[in-house]
């Protein structure tokens, strides 16, 4: 098969998937969003003041106090969310740089040099080949010294052969120290480009990747630009006409088409793992731009080499000084302090060899950790930019186990940073950057209050002990405006994105985050134990047992509570029953997506082609 035929074979239905268009708010929508956030937070504060001053049931503090604390903590998270998403400001993108002098480097008349790294460990060789070919097709209007490298931690001869055949560099090493961060560090040591582009093995850049991103580097303070990660293999679900057609034949299809003509496309079972990252990149990360605080997410980012190296040197010197101080203190403690210059020099030499020099922090969350390191370099004041437009495509986790492992690493890595090197106490970060990092890290503590909010309704239904002193009209009067305003503000502020799904997954993930929190507090390594049976198709129930247990408990408690209400039992008033029933319903709806994901099987007609077509072409 010729190269052209091969390329044509890969232009499949799957490859014609379109990414989202970046949102763009005018001044009216921005002000409306900000006004709604302010109103939501004010009504939330009003509700909480009422809760603490009027409505605590002091006769059942075992349930009422944890609930009030949980509500307050959840509100704190909401404040961080609102403030960190407050502004839609985005930096100007100047003209593309033609020479290194345009990005603040030497003024030599030479082409800009860009190293493109494809980090891989065990991925398919053909997958890498596609990415490399796409990278070679990246366009730039000025002379550019583009060097593509495969960073193979798998040390595979087939990968080396492919790299040679494609005419790109092949970099490997004798060990896998530091995993991906170590792999990148090793490649940095062997390359010298002005800029570094990081791609994962499954990244397929678009031709305009460089023209969309390099302009930002005209600002000499910009250290890196992150672009959105778009997954082009997310199961699209079954269209309503087909879904109805399977059940009711031609009449069902006709009704489905009529409904879709009226209210737009309807899909059953789309994105079963909540992988769509639009909200994260197009809203949350974009809105960190106002504080130049978007963080690096690895693949799809462009870095100024100078920034990474300088920050690494500073971190290395700081670590060296810390270690020296510790050793000197230990020597003093045993009466050997005040060493002469020669001894101190020798000690410094030995210590220097023990301290890692690493542009990317060797950490399970190396991307965000490196971002914090660069942002907190007060002397240089490095900035980061989140670019709005999708300029590459990638593959998503395809089952609940892969999803769980990925999310567990995110949670564990973030919590590890929060506990051991909290950015809020780090000097060098601006107040805005601290707020943004708080908004990123605090939600990982959310299981502490989510669990209480999930358990409160069944606790009431089963015991009759109300956490709220009186479920009167006054209660609803304080709560409902807050809830309504929150929903309206989220709809306006994240216009075009599915915030409901995102919030449901946020709640449903609580056991995973709790497990990560416990592991970090116990000083355990962040790794997710996998048993062979987990890999069997459809056997993912073990991963969602806590959620299944909670849904069962809530349903049982509902039946019990209404039974007691019907019997006229004291403590089971109608107001309390209504409030707790609605609340229980919301909890069940929130927990459902992850249980559904454990049972989910791709639809052979609509999901499988999109999920497997590219992989089948490769195999």
């Amino acid at each position, binding site marked *: 098969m010729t190269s052209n035929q091969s390329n044509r074979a890969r232009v499949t239905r799957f490859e014609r998937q379109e990414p*989202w*268009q970046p*949102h*763009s708010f005018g001044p009216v929508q921005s002000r409306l969003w900000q006004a709604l956030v302010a109103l939501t937070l004010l009504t939330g504060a009003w509700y909480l003041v009422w809760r603490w001053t009027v409505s605590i*049931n*002091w*006769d059942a503090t075992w349930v009422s106090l944890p609930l009030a604390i949980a509500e307050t903590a959840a509100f704190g998270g909401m404040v961080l969310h609102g403030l960190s998403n407050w502004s839609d400001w985005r930096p100007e993108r100047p003209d593309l740089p033609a020479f290194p002098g345009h990005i603040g480097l030497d003024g030599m008349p030479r082409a800009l040099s860009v190293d493109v790294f494809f980090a891989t460990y065990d991925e398919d060789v053909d997958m890498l080949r596609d990415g490399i070919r796409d990278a070679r097709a990246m366009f730039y209007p000025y002379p550019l010294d583009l060097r593509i490298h495969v960073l193979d931690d798998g040390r595979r001869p087939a990968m080396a052969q492919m790299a040679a055949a494609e005419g790109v560099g092949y970099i490997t090493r004798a060990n896998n120290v530091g995993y991906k961060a170590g792999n990148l560090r090793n490649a940095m040591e062997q390359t010298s480009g002005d800029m570094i582009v990081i791609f994962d093995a499954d990244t397929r850049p678009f031709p305009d990747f460089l023209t969309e991103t390099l302009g930002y580097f005209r600002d000499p303070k910009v250290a890196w630009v992150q672009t959105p990660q778009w997954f082009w293999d997310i199961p699209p679900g079954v269209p309503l006409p087909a879904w109805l057609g399977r059940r009711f034949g031609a009449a069902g299809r006709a009704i489905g088409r009529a409904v879709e003509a009226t*209210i*737009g*496309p309807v899909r059953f079972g789309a994105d079963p793992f909540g992988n769509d990252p639009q909200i994260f990149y197009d809203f949350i990360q974009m809105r960190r731009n106002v504080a130049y605080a978007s963080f690096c997410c690895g693949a799809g980012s462009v870095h100024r080499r100078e920034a990474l190296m300088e920050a690494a040197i500073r971190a290395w010197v700081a670590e060296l000084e810390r270690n020296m101080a510790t050793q000197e203190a230990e020597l003093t403690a045993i009466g050997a302090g005040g060493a002469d210059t020669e001894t101190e020099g020798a000690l410094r030499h030995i210590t220097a060899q023990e301290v890692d020099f690493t542009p990317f922090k060797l950490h399970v969350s190396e991307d965000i950790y490196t971002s914090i390191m660069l942002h907190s370099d007060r002397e240089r004041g490095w900035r980061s930019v989140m670019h709005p437009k999708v300029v590459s495509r990638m593959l998503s986790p395809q089952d609940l186990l892969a999803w769980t492992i990925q999310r567990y690493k995110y949670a564990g890595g973030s919590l590890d940073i929060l506990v051991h090197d909290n950015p809020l106490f780090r000097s060098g970060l601006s107040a805005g950057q601290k707020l943004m990092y708080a908004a990123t890290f605090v939600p990982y503590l959310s299981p502490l209050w989510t669990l209480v909010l999930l358990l409160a309704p069944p606790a009431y239904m089963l015991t009759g002990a*109300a956490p*709220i*002193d*009186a*479920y*009167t*009209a006054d209660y*609803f*009067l304080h709560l*409902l405006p807050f*809830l*309504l305003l929150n*929903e*309206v503000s*989220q*709809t306006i502020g994240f*216009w*075009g*994105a*599915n*915030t*409901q799904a995102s919030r449901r997954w946020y709640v449903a993930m609580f056991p995973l985050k709790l497990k990560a929190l416990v592991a970090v507090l116990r000083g355990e390594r962040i790794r997710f134990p996998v048993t062979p049976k987990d890999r069997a198709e459809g056997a993912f129930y073990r991963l969602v047992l806590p959620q299944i247990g909670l849904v069962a408990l809530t349903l049982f408690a509902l039946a019990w509570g209404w039974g007691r209400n019907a019997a006229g039992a*004291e*403590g*089971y*008033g*109608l*107001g*309390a029953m*209504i409030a707790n029933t*609605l609340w229980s319903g919301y909890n069940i709806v929130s927990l459902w997506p992850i249980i559904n994901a454990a049972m989910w099987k791709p639809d052979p007609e609509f999901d499988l082609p999109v999920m497997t077509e590219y992989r089948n072409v490769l195999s």
Partner: protein
Amino acid sequence: MSFRNGLIAARGQILWILLLALSSVAILRTDLDLTPSRPPLEAAP
């Protein structure tokens, strides 16, 4: 994103808001007996 596409993406959310709003009005205007779920403190023995 066009307004129509935004509306399509937000339709579930809008439906949920309407449901919440209607429930709120129903709860606040209804004659349901929303008596406290337990006797007031001063009435307790």
